[in-house]
């Protein structure tokens, strides 16, 4: 059984997480960073979930310290404040997952995140959906730049037809699919193979795969490439740069930033040099009130 340490000065949050996770995991709690470090001295944890704002040492410092002492431990931040304000801090502390404290709390999302990180099984849209309610709407494959446009339109049409809504998916898919077609394929030395907006037919073995589906509360699209050129650091760097307004006039990171902005959830899963998956999710109605999370999982 995996073990998880929860660190939060708010007792209701500690007990809430404890109640939910215990049974599936071995769970311990600490009310501040100092107590957490003392606990970690005595025994090891597979994951530490820490609040950001606590009296004494703050969450990001605690997790950076834990990462330094126990590199194998997964670290996740949780906050009631605006996640966007902490992307830079998180990046510096080696954290790429920040859970917002929404009201009501989004347990399904917590489940997917925790189990994914612990098991290393992060890929697949279905993992982020309620399994008992999941309906696969369709899958598509992109083999050329020409396909890209058709697939984008077909996916949007499918969502609109089946669910009556596609949100801003056309806009987002345009960005994400462009990224996948032009920026993912590269030569071994790292230079990109294809020029942006040129006519491209992907080489055998280079594939981009799209999947659309929904459950009772949300719908989503997953875009997978088998190249895995994107890294956690790159994603964090680009998102943060766009958030701070530094990237307003150039395109670098615009796609990722816009996708995060225009969808309710953007989850990025990375197996370095093997696979990249961008999952975009919209809720049918906004039940979970709070800020948008940051979910980047890298194996």
């Amino acid at each position, binding site marked *: 059984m995996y073990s998880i340490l929860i660190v939060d000065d708010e007792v209701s949050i500690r*007990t*809430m997480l404890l109640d939910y996770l215990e049974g599936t995991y071995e769970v311990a709690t600490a009310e501040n960073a100092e107590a957490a470090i003392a606990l970690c001295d005595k025994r090891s944890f597979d994951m530490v979930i820490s609040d950001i704002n606590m009296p004494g040492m703050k969450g990001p410092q605690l997790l950076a310290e834990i990462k330094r002492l126990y590199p194998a431990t997964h670290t996740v931040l949780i906050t009631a404040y605006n996640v966007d304000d902490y992307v830079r801090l998180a990046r510096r502390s080696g954290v790429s997952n920040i859970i917002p*404290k929404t*009201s*009501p*709390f989004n347990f399904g999302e917590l489940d997917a995140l925790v189990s994914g990180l612990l098991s290393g099984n992060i890929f697949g849209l279905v993992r982020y959906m309620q399994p008992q309610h999941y309906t696969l709407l369709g899958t598509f494959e992109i083999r050329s730049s020409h396909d890209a446009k058709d697939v984008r339109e077909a996916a949007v049409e499918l969502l609109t037809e089946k669910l009556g809504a596609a949100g801003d998916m056309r806009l987002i898919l345009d960005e994400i699919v462009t990224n996948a077609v032009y920026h993912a394929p590269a030569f071994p030395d790292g230079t990109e193979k294809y020029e942006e907006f040129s006519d491209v037919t992907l080489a055998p073995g280079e594939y981009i795969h799209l999947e659309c589906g929904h459950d009772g509360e949300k719908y989503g699209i997953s875009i997978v490439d088998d190249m895995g050129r994107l890294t956690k650091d790159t994603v964090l760097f680009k998102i943060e740069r766009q958030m701070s307004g530094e990237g307003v006039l150039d395109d670098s990171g615009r796609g990722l930033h816009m996708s995060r902005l*225009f969808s309710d959830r953007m989850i990025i899963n990375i197996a370095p040099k093997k696979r990249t998956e961008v999952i975009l999710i919209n809720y049918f109605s906004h039940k979970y009130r709070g800020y948008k999370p940051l979910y980047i999982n890298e194996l």
Partner: protein
Amino acid sequence: MTVLVSGILAASLAACGSLFFVYRKEKGRAGYLERALDAKNQRHDTTITEKITLSKKQLETAFDAITDLICALDSDLRITRVNKSYAAFVGVPIPKLLGRHCWEAFWSRAEPCDHCPAQMTFATGKPVLKHQIKMPDKDRPRYFTVATYPVLDAAGKPQNVIEHIRDSTDEKVILEQLIRSEKLASIGTMTAGIAHEMINPLSGISGTAGNMLQMPGKYGLNEKGVARVTAILDASSRASAIVKDLLHLSRKEDGTSMLMDVNSLVLKAVEAVRLKGLPSVEHKINLDTALTRVLCDPTKIQQVIINLVTNAVQSVLEKKSNLAREHRSFSGLILISTQTEDDKVRVDISDNGTGVADDIKGKIFDPFFTTRPPGEGTGLGLSICQKIVDEHQGRIFFESTESLTTFSLLLPAYRPRPESAQEFA
């Protein structure tokens, strides 16, 4: 400007000329020193009288030129002198004011005012300044700032009091607005802090309630317990909705800005309103296809447009149901248009719904002001819109007649700076 410069020039020339004249006169007088000295003394006396007269004239001119109201009072509070502005304000010629009591002539009272500043100055021999003295008026009350200064005799006792009255009604209004916005700003900062601190326990409360409903056995919960916990979850959800709105209202701009085509935001907003499940209302969208792009936070501007469109739809639906009760039919219409207007991008959202009544026109952007029944909306929508638009250096305003209400949004159009134009091209 030219007039001013030539005026200054003329004055300096005149000054030089008189200097020159004095110099020649002095030179010519050199031979007759004694007589001249005698004559000079005589002339000296005349000059003093002339100077005093001149000085008096200057003071009188200044006295009358001052637009503030000035009067001199004796110890009985009778007016001994007034300036033209004072007489004009009261609407009585100067001679008819002299000798009257100030409390009767100016303040239309039957007896001296409470805490009369002139009386205080007579009593203490010191100047007194009073702000915001209210004069009731049937239309709207006016406010005055009154300053009184003693005119002391040789013994240091006040002989007269000069009263200076300034109409500060407009200042008061501006000051009130300032205080209000200052207050709002500090309330905003405070609210953000409180709201964040509220999210923490609210998330814990609703999360724990959620756990209890998911696993009632684990908590030893019976049916009644489940019902109560459901109520807790509902209540915390409502509280969260308010906190979220408050956060929107108080949050500082965090700098997300992108070059956006406002047309696409309008279309998305209309789509979003449709998805909200509101009954559809006939609408026409007229977009300027050559619209200049705007540097903005797209989700926020979209939120503003969604808000305005939702209000329009609700207003039309409300009018429809009002008229239906009187068995009258009504076809609602919403018009949405965009256009470039000078260096601004303009979005107009018009509807022929209930309109904005005159008595609430000044209030609709106030936080927590709502015309909807309690429980439907927090009344923060338009104040959030106002804040978002302010953050974008834009303007939001409306015009409402019985037949048409138009909310307009002006956002600064993006113009690349010359040095970045090349890189941009």
